[in-house]
């Protein structure tokens, strides 16, 4: 079975633009329209955030959008309902990103099956440890053609990098700095030397750089070291503006990817 994530990386080696947003934000029924607008504006991959009440790996912007989405009535059940016909509308890879507890409450196996039915290509669950994934859940992911995307950080040891590379399929999510989402602005020399180290490490999986990518400049810089980059908080912040959805999305994507 071909997975859309693999297809994307086969077809495009550079400047992949992946965008994260929180499902049900700013309005409950914005989930599908946001996806459609992003696709219309040429985004390569979309990460759909499943809001959680206690997002410890997230900074203030995504905490805020998660809270609003939950207040709007977003839930895992609701999200699956919204996405049930999404494959009639868009063909780019879609990833669900969220915390493990709502997935456990839904039932991990049922969750994976539902993703398979809908045509979701991968999951990013930052608080699902590698060892638990391998021992308990891997077969459920594989049975539904779902990639589990792991994170690496500047603190990840070489030995662990190899283990994560071995366990990964799809791509590796390279967290740009020691931080929660959206925390740090700009790019430091420390980050560039970390990007350099990873790009020369010889990973078998492609990498996308995320966290703190917020402008054309930071996007371009990240793309020099990896197959592309992921934008989250900056886009979520833009979604909060008082404009029509298509204006918000098209203006934002233009500011990031003008020269790509």
């Amino acid at each position, binding site marked *: 079975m071909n997975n859309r994530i693999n297809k994307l990386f086969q077809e495009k080696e550079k400047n992949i633009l992946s965008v994260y947003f929180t499902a049900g934000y700013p309005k409950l029924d914005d989930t599908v329209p946001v996806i459609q607008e992003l696709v219309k504006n040429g985004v390569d991959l979309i990460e759909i955030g499943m809001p959680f009440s206690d997002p*410890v790996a997230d900074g203030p912007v995504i905490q805020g959008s998660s809270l609003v989405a939950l207040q709007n009535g977003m839930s895992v059940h609701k999200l699956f309902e919204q996405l049930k016909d999404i494959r009639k509308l868009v063909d780019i890879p879609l990833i669900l990103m969220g915390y493990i507890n709502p997935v456990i*409450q839904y039932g991990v196996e049922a969750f994976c099956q539902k993703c398979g039915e809908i045509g979701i290509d991968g999951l990013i669950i930052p608080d699902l440890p590698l060892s638990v994934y391998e021992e308990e859940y891997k077969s459920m992911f594989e049975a539904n053609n779902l990639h589990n995307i792991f994170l690496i950080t500047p603190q990840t040891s070489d030995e662990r990098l190899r283990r994560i590379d071995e366990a990964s399929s799809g791509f590796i999510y390279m967290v740009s700095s020691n931080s929660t989402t959206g925390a740090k602005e700009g790019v430091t020399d420390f980050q560039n030397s970390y990007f350099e180290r990873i790009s020369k490490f010889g990973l078998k999986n492609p990498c996308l750089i995320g966290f703190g990518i917020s402008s054309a400049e930071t996007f371009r810089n990240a793309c020099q070291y990896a197959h592309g980059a992921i934008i989250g908080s900056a886009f979520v912040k833009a979604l909060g503006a008082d404009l029509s959805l298509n204006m918000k999305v098209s203006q934002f994507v233009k500011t990031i990817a003008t020269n790509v």
Partner: protein
Amino acid sequence: MDYQVNRKGYYGEFGGAYIPEMMVPNIEELEARYMEIMHSYDFKQEFVSLLKNYVGRPSPLYFAKRLSEKYQSNIFLKREDLNHTGSHKINNTIGQILVAKKLGKTRIIAETGAGQHGLATATVCALMGLKCIVYMGAVDVERQAPNVKKMRMLGAEVISAVSGNQTLKDATNEAMRDWINNPVDTYYIIGSVVGPHPYPDMVARFQSVISEEMRWQLEEQVGRENPDRIIACVGGGSNAAGAFYHYLDQENVELIGVEAAGKGVDTNETAATITLGTPGVLHSSRSILMQTDDGQITEPYSISAGLDYPGIGPLHAHLFKTGRAKYLWATDAEVLDSALELTQMEGIIPALESAHALAVLPKIKLRPEEITVINLSGRGDKDMETYLKHFGY
């Protein structure tokens, strides 16, 4: 039955380390080293000496004569309220600050609810000359104001957490975010038997001094090591874990944890996690927690800031599941009555948290020949404003 953590960090089905990758290096380092550090000669010497000369241990085991007469049984109080800084929390912070030093960390962070753990952390940081940042929910900053002032005087920075219900859960979220943002120089002193493995086990070991002392104190005072029953309040569960620890495999000792029912277990304003919760993952371990069907964590409520938490340590989830310990609850109103009763019958003003343990005395059957030990986890200084408001003195 085995009640200790296994090699993978689980108590039965509960525990583990559900951490984001950003926390992995710190947790792996701690897991690899905590036992070796705790068993080293240097560490043991310094820990024991500080507990004795700085904290004032052993804490007395006091036979509460008038309370015993009232309930027609034998009630002892383990006086953790007499420790330096006023609660059991200092046992753990002394241990963890020594671990942090061995790991070469220079910046200490902590979460706090009632402010007792924050205070105990600020205290040991002053003692060791380390920088200290304490996260505290904005609501708790208000209701436990005396502790905030003490922490500041001790040199700690107190940061008010404004997300969620602005209580202990939210303070813990903020502390975890801080650690993610500062992974190199920082050590996180968690205040209860919660969080990712190895914290629940490490904190339980540091608190186990409570039951270690109880054994010889009971032997000395009544001629037997084992009481018939031990009662302790349960927020995250550290004072209860310490009071139960050396009795876990003495199945004839009844263990009772008491949760905060807030306005009642049939209302939305409650923190009775085991009574109302279901299995799930919060703050990096699999345990029992209060949540919606969708897996969102429910905001808890209790008059007592230290018990106002929607989760519980994995050890307690396991003790509950296996039936080794029983978990009861007490409402705000019952707790206030019990606090006043202890104050006026024994001359001891308890912390609101500890008064939960006292509040189940009228609800359980105590026989005249039985010995019950109540872990009096802390004193009531920090709660004077709440008490005065309710009692109108």
